[in-house]
């Protein structure tokens, strides 16, 4: 626009312009990362497709259905779905066995040990179909959408580095750091003596 | 419009000190803002206290040692602080230089004690509202101590440059002393709140 002026600007000014521009872009990107398109309704065909979990024969690990990637992995990335998952965790009584995530009658969810692998699809399969030694199946109590929301949330409980979309504390008594502070990283240290594996229940 | 000169201002000084200096008034206005902030924080402290069945919530009152030492240290620093202010008014460059170095040390020392104050609360910020408000009060005050320390350090450097011997700089030193007095004065109600109110 003003060629003379542009040629005249010092290096400092040029870099300043670049910085300003990248700042704006960065700001947009940062918020864009946090973008929360809230999906309230999952079309029944989409839900049906999401239900096609492809598990390893052992039941440990597997791959989510293609549509999960096509949807851009909403259940691990959307803050809204994660917070819905957190509500489901209490509504469906998960705490009665898993406590605040540190386990109880059921295994701990944040000690870094996942009996069936840490992938979200394995967690979803555990919720949907249940597992031996006491984990009930929820497929006739929760919809596919809800199972995925809960699975995504459960994954954040045990995450070692908190995602930006992880939920924060509840309006409740404080028992452990909230998911957005990566409780697993704070509570579980490799150098501590190994705690009894959850199948045996918590230490007396 | 025609102009008629009725007042000759050429004999006026080029910079006034204290109430004749806009900077002084600006410092006062900022102290009023921050004072309002501290007053509100204290009001919130008492509001939360009025709701709680017992105070502090589920913890013993804080240990007195670190906080009391810090209070004494802050109070002791008033004397050199006032001296620096007086020397600045008298434009005694050498004395101001030494005084500022002393003040920088005296402002850094409380930070060392402050490190021990947080564990002395026996509560973490995320445990309950009591923990949240005492950590916030301490944090708020720490931020002011750090701000003034940085200000003092920069001023100290400045006084050793060719810009040092200037009424404006002496005014800045006086304002900085005024601000440090403010940091001390707001600490006193905070100290009472944090350490003695839970013992009532």
């Amino acid at each position, binding site marked *: 626009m003003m060629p003379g002026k542009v040629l005249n600007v010092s290096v400092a000014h040029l870099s300043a312009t670049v910085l300003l521009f990248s700042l704006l872009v960065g700001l947009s990107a940062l918020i864009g990362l946090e973008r929360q398109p809230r999906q*309230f*309704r999952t079309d*029944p065909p989409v*839900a*049906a497709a999401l239900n096609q979990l492809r598990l390893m024969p052992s039941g440990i690990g597997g791959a989510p259905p293609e549509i999960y990637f096509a949807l851009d992995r909403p259940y691990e990335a959307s803050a809204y779905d994660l917070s819905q998952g957190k509500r489901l965790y209490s509504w469906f009584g998960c705490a009665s066995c898993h406590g605040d995530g540190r386990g109880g009658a059921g295994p701990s969810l944040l000690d870094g040990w996942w009996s069936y692998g840490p992938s979200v699809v394995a967690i979803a399969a555990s919720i949907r179909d249940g597992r031996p030694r006491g984990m009930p199946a929820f497929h*006739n*109590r929760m*919809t596919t*959408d809800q199972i995925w929301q809960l699975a995504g949330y459960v994954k954040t409980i045990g995450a070692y580095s908190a995602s930006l979309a992880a939920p924060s504390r509840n309006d409740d008594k404080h028992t452990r750091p909230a998911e957005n502070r990566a409780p697993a990283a704070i509570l579980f240290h490799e150098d501590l003596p190994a705690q009894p594996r959850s199948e045996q229940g918590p230490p007396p | 419009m025609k102009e008629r000169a009725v007042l000759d201002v050429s004999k006026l000084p080029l910079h006034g000190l204290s109430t004749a200096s806009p900077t002084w008034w600006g410092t006062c206005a900022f102290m009023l803002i921050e004072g309002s902030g501290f007053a509100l924080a204290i009001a919130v402290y008492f509001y939360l206290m009025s709701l709680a069945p017992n105070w502090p919530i589920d913890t013993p009152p804080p240990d007195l040692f670190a906080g009391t030492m810090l209070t004494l240290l802050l109070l002791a620093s008033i004397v050199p602080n006032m001296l620096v202010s007086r020397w600045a008014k008298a434009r005694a460059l050498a004395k101001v230089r030494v005084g500022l170095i002393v003040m920088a040390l005296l402002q850094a020392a409380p930070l060392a004690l402050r490190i021990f104050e947080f564990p002395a609360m026996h509560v973490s910020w995320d445990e309950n509202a009591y923990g949240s408000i005492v950590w916030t009060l301490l944090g708020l005050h720490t931020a002011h101590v750090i701000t003034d320390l940085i200000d003092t350090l920069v001023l100290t450097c400045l006084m050793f440059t060719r810009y040092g011997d200037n009424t404006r700089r002496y005014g800045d030193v006086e304002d900085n002393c005024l601000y440090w007095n403010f940091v001390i004065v707001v600490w006193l109600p905070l100290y009472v709140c944090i350490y003695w109110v839970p013992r009532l």
Partner: protein
Amino acid sequence: MKSTSALLLLALLVSGCTGAQSILNAEGHAAIELKELILWIICVCAVVWLLVMIALVSALVRQRDPDGGAISERKAAVAISGAVGATVLVITGLTITSFYTTRALSEASPAELTIDVTAQQWWWQFTYVDANPTRAFVTANELHIPVGKVARLRLKSSDVIHSFWVPSLAGKRDLIAGRENMLTLRAERPGIYRGQCAEFCGLQHSHMALFVIAEAQADYERWAERQRGVGAEPTEAEAVAGKAVFMAKQCAACHTIRGTKASGTTGPDLTHVGSRRTIAAGLLEITRGSLAAWIADPQTLKPGNNMPLVPLTGDELRQLAAYMESLR
């Protein structure tokens, strides 16, 4: 002129219109008192406004006498002092009036009925408290009270702040997590009064209505007695099938139907859902069709609410709707 036409309109509304949810359609003890106060204050203020307007117009268009400066300045000073004095009088009067109204409204009359109101996103749960716990019962979104009797509501919230407001019966009161508030209702005439959450509470704040049904004592007793009972056993074939669907599908995990194994507590109690006027907190009047529509796609009718879209076949849907309707 606009304000007079507005006043006219207001008068019209006061006399003629009976909205389902209106401050001016006062049928409760408190609301009647409040309506009188409101109309009185509005009238006083309208007069004040008119006086100011007269002063404004005459200040703008009056004939100016060529010189009378000093005298009129003194007159103006007197006039202003008078006006300020009048202002003080008016606001003192209004303050005292409103103080007495508050006192009259808060005079404690013994409650004959206690109901726990728990607001949640985005519906109302009502628990009718009884000294004998087996006679207590739970319902949702529809409150029945006997006419002329004082019902005491204990207001609680299980999530965010809501506000209980049935304008025809009483002023509003917030429901706040961690606190308990009180509100008393006394309907003077039988009727169906609509209310609505009046504090912004998230996505479906707009669809969080409730109905208060004031009825004669005998009718109320009959209703309460039926509410205490377990859910009706369906007889119609379609409804029988619907019950099976309800128990097999996700429904039972969130809703309770007393007398069956459905005992979820996340959603409203459905034991007598068929006896209510509306579904989904005042969203739709209950018919078999609207029930089916709601179950088929709650997220389109009330986006963001906590009832999930449960995939069902057409038959299952019809059967469920029939079952719901049969729960009277």
